[in-house]
């Protein structure tokens, strides 16, 4: 099963690119010129988002380094125990909305601490796999076009993240406990 999925995911990109190139050949449009013209824009976009990236990445990095999450963990411990939520996974619930690379780091930490077949690992994997980094996406996407008023976008994203975490806890307790 995994083998099939892995092969599929390796072949998806070449497959899409092949279709695009063949269609261009069929329509006789200049593929090389189109490519370089499009690629030029990548530079501008990447430069434009630098200030927003700095803001969000510095915020998350110092938040993680400050140990704020440990304080939160101690406060929440009784509730976590009641719902059968492994305490290690709380870090993940917070970083999940903040930063993608941090989340993968936390997931590896949890695997190291609790073992690859523990309930904590399974819950952490489901949480990681089922959501995207809300603040990162918001600052990059809106930053790239210069939007300053986010309106309800962030709130909706965070509420959905919370629903996602509750759903993960609930579904995992059905599947794995």
């Amino acid at each position, binding site marked *: 099963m995994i083998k099939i999925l892995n092969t599929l*995911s390796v072949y*998806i990109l070449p497959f899409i690119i092949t279709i695009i190139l063949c*269609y261009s050949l069929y*329509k006789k449009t*200049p*593929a090389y010129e*189109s490519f*370089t*013209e*499009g*690629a030029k*824009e990548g*530079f501008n*976009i*990447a430069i434009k*988002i*630098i200030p927003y*990236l*700095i803001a*969000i990445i*510095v*915020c998350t*990095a*110092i*938040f*993680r380094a*400050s140990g*704020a999450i440990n*304080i939160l963990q101690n406060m929440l411990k009784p509730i976590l125990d009641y719902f059968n939520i492994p305490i290690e996974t709380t870090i993940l619930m917070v970083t999940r*909305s903040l930063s993608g690379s941090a989340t*993968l780091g936390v997931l*590896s930490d949890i*695997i190291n601490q609790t073992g*690859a077949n523990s309930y904590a*690992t*399974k819950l952490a*994997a*489901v*949480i990681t*796999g*089922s*959501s*995207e*980094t809300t603040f990162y996406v*918001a600052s990059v*996407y*809106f930053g*790239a*076009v*210069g939007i300053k008023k986010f*309106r*309800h*976008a*962030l709130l*909706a*994203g965070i*509420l*959905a993240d919370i*629903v996602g975490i509750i*759903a993960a806890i609930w579904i995992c307790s059905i599947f794995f406990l």
Partner: protein
Amino acid sequence: MNYIFIFLILISFICATINNRMDIVVDEMLKSSQRAVEISFALIGIMGFWLGIINIAKKSGLIDIFSKCIKKPLLYIFPDLKENNDALSNIALNISANALGLTNAATPFGIKAMENMQKENKNKQRATNSMCTFLAINTAGFQIVPAVVIAILSAAKMDNPSQIIIPTLIVTSIAFLSALFFVKILERHFK
């Protein structure tokens, strides 16, 4: 975003004082700002490549065919984009790339879609309803196969890592639908 920014930084400083970790925090502050620039430089290559490939498809007309197919269902979610074909096709590309777990390929399409929507935006500083909807469903991160997570789990020698696929799919669908629900409910209350 303003308050979140200020709140995160101040909370970090306060907690760092309590935990006596201020030295680590200051060090991390300087290092991470450098990391932000490194990340965006790494993005130049990936962005350039995908925007290049997609421009071939655009010039040959393949994108038009694609957006025609996907237009109907997307218009239910983005009713304001009736006249904005470019935005719709980029949104479709972004969602399909995300669903397949190709996050690197999804980002350029997402930013492109934002640019397309910004063109028709009257107040350039303020996000439109469609932009907020697009962002919210993007942050919900709908994915059919969480390839990266499975790779990590199998590297850690979990027995049968594919057991997380079905639960993850259920959870990500719930998150996706609730993002849509919240964004549509909230859009009336935020001017």
